[in-house]
């Protein structure tokens, strides 16, 4: 490790401050603003129900984001592995002594908020992989030997999350990791084999699924199977979305969401509520905002002069995208119900915090894009 004075920043703090991407922050605020409006509507005009605390969390997350993005990226580089280890320990802790919700152990109650370590783990995995691939040469990465360590880095949290059991999060960690492997330059064959092996493993994996998970998959295949049981999530969500039409039913006028046809309208099905009330136009606004945020993430990644920053910013962007894709695809009946929130919009503390930490790190990659990172 280099001595600490090697971390001394050649630029002053004002220069760094100017490197913060105002555009991205505006996009993030806009997205969280949609969340505020949607939750205000979900609470039937009662700000205190969800919207207010959503905004407070966003405020906390916003400050965290600004602090994170101004901290020298070399610190984050150094802390990548320690964070990973902390995340892993939290997962173990939640496994031993966590709160059970919806048939799965996922939370740690910190008193002021409930923490879902798996959410933080998604970021920690991306950081750890970026840290690892930064140190690997191009030629080395073609080989399989160097992939053993990152494979373990991914397998450990995935295994722990599966134990909770939380299939959705486990799959998301896998996919984010796969994207990291891909952009890091891993041979294409590996992906072909990986995907093939994954498909082959489905029948075996099916055996290990919990009943409610099997139910969700079966219901996804045929929602009408059980319209008042497990299938109602999908069916009702589709009715709510479809009935919104092009212009929507008007803000706070959504009938399906307000009449509790939708379960968890403030969390997983917040997109449904939003597009029921604002219609296709409101839905496209969300998709275009997402597109703009992704584009910003890619732009930052491309501008970054060190592999760690490129991998980190892109990995976190992909991570954010996965969240959004899975949530939106789920509520529109494209994939089975997996219980993924829409980041920045769904009501939920950890998801908000994780998203803002992620954005903080992405912006950090822009602020410190020219830092010299020593391969270790």
């Amino acid at each position, binding site marked *: 490790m280099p001595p600490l004075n090697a971390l001394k920043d050649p630029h002053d703090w004002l220069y760094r401050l100017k490197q913060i991407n105002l555009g991205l922050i505006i996009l993030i605020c806009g997205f969280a603003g949609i969340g505020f409006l949607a939750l205000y509507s979900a609470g039937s005009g009662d700000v205190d129900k969800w919207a207010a605390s959503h905004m407070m969390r966003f405020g906390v997350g916003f400050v965290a984001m600004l602090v994170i993005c101004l901290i020298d990226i070399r610190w984050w580089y150094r802390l990548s592995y320690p964070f990973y280890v902390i995340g892993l320990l939290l997962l173990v802790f939640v496994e031993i002594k966590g709160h059970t919700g919806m048939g799965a152990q996922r939370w740690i109650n910190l008193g002021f908020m409930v923490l879902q370590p798996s959410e933080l783990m998604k970021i920690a995995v991306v950081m750890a992989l970026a840290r690892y691939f930064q140190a690997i040469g191009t030629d080395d990465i073609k080989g399989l030997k160097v992939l053993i360590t990152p494979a373990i880095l991914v397998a450990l949290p995935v295994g722990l999350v599966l134990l909770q059991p939380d299939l959705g999060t486990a799959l998301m960690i896998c996919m984010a990791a796969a994207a990291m492997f891909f952009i890091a330059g891993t041979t294409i064959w590996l992906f072909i084999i990986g995907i093939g092996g994954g498909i082959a493993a489905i029948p075996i994996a099916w055996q290990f699924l919990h009943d409610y998970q099997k139910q969700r998959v079966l219901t996804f295949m045929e929602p009408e199977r059980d319209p008042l049981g497990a299938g*109602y999530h999908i069916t*009702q969500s589709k009715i709510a979305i479809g009935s919104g039409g092009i212009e929507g039913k008007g803000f706070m006028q959504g009938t399906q969401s307000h009449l509790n046809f939708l379960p968890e309208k403030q969390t997983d099905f917040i997109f449904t509520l939003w597009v029921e009330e604002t219609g*296709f136009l409101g839905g496209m606004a969300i998709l275009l905002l997402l597109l703009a945020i992704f584009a910003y993430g890619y732009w930052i990644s491309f501008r970054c002069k060190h592999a760690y920053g490129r991998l980190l910013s892109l990995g976190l962007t992909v991570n954010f995208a996965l969240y959004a894709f899975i949530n939106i695809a789920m509520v529109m009946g494209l994939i089975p119900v997996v219980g993924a929130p829409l980041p920045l919009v769904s009501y939920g503390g950890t998801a908000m915090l994780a998203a803002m930490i992620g954005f903080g790190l992405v912006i950090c990659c822009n602020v410190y894009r020219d830092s010299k990172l020593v391969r270790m």
Partner: protein
Amino acid sequence: MSTFAKDKENRSSSFTRRAVILGGLQIGILGILGTRLAWLQVVEGQKYRTLAEQNRINVKLLAPERGEITDRFGVPLAINEQDFRVLILPEQTDDLEQALRKLSHYIELTPRDIQRTLKAAKRNARFVPVEIRNSLSREDISTIEVNLPDLPGILTDSGQKRSYPLREATAHLVGYVGAVTEENIEEEDNNPVLGLPGLRIGKSGIEKVYDKDLRGVAGQAEMEVNVVGREVRTLSEIKSTPGKRVILTVDGELQRFVQKRLDQERSAAAVIMDVHTGAVYAMASTPSFDPNYFVNGISVEHWEEIQANPSYPLNNKVMTGQYPPASTYKICVALAFLENNIATAHTTTNCPGYFLLGNDKFHCWQKHGHGRMNVISALEQSCDVYFYELSLKLGIDKISEMAARMGLGKPTRLESDHEKSGLLPTQAWKKEKLNDIWHRGETVVASIGQGYTLATPIQLAVMISRLVNGGYAVEPHLTAAIGSERILRPEFPSIGLNPDHVKLVIKGVEQVMVGARGTARGSQIPEESMRMGGKTGTAQVRRITKAQRAAGVRNEDLPWEERHHALFVGYAPINNPRYACSVVVEHGIGGSRSAAPLARDILWEAQKRAPALTDIPTSA
């Protein structure tokens, strides 16, 4: 370029390439999501809008309160009583069986109650309360309520239950309500109101005839419901309109009296009505039944008991009992003689106790004969031979024509769900129905109200009314007002009787009660101002055989079901007739013996109560 730099450049271009692929993939996914959104909202939007509408609004009918039925003084004959029920809300209890077992410490629960409750709870959503028992006493309910903290999920509430305070006395008249059947639903073309849980509709009597008025109009509540059907809130509500009160012309107290008096006989029917207005003051049939048992479904044992009674307790004999009018019919026949100039006041016949037509011998009820008879004495003593002889000169058609004008042979149109029309035979009728020619002997039999001729007690009451009311075609009715609307009746047309003829016949029926040989002379009302007139009748149930006649078998020695029916038609007071009464005592042996005293008691009581003198209040 150093290896390091080259490596860096390679890596950079590989990264860029792959990042672009990944970015393209993301844009592709966004495109899929956008397309899906457009598909759901733009292409299929209309379909989902329809689904959404069906989803959220559940129109619920609100049961209206059934209208009361009262007598002419406002005394309730059919009311809605509070019915206490105990229910259980499955979602508030962990163990349904345990909760029911606990409840059974406080009130009696049969294994059937428990089975039914558990079954119903399984069928419904957990937030739907399930009835455990109804018709609980006030004590039971308060016991439960005191112990509610100990009974999780148990609820009490009070509904409404139809009740008939006069019980047996109004069973036929007012009728009863019962559960909706498949046929009811079909008849009313799937009227959704009939689907109301616990709805009772009129099954007989006034309850049936005025069911639509009594039922009221169901209200409507538009409920917002969520996906599992739980009501979230009420969107709009149209209150139900209670059913109208039906006020009858009946005097409840008199009705009770008549029923009680009739119950002294095994099987009988009586009706008392106003000779001018046609208002029925009482109408009863015995044996009767308690309609309260029918409201919530009668038990099998009780039903079988009623069914097993040979005197048909469920039948209202006033309307559905068809009897040979026997000698009461002589009123019509005498009027027909006079009108057709077959007889005048002075026309006489000789009665030797029998009448010969060819080889056939027709007996008079007075074996030894009445001697010389004119119209008045023939009515007083009910001489058969007088009528036998003159009827042959008149012919059956003229007799039946007069009887028809007096109200026989067709339904009286009294408000009832079923009424028999009786029968007035004519030559054409016999040709058509029996494909046979009319025989003269049949006219002879018909002249004393036997043979084919049949009449119901209500028709006989109409007959005597038309005789004494000045010759108007009065029709009976039971309903005075519906809601606040008094039912107006058209003026009755004249039936075109000659007042002199009427006077003669009235003289005859007055003599029945007071004449030295009047058939009902023992049954006169002792009070001068309430004196009555009337005519007895004794209807043969089966032909008296020669052997019986020769042996002088007394009718009362025969088995009950072979004895004669006893009839009486009467009116009072004689100087200004107001009340007409007809009585039939099945197998009562003789009109003077059992029917006349019964009619006397009814007419007497009616005049004491004088329902005709009170105006009917129509406001609720």
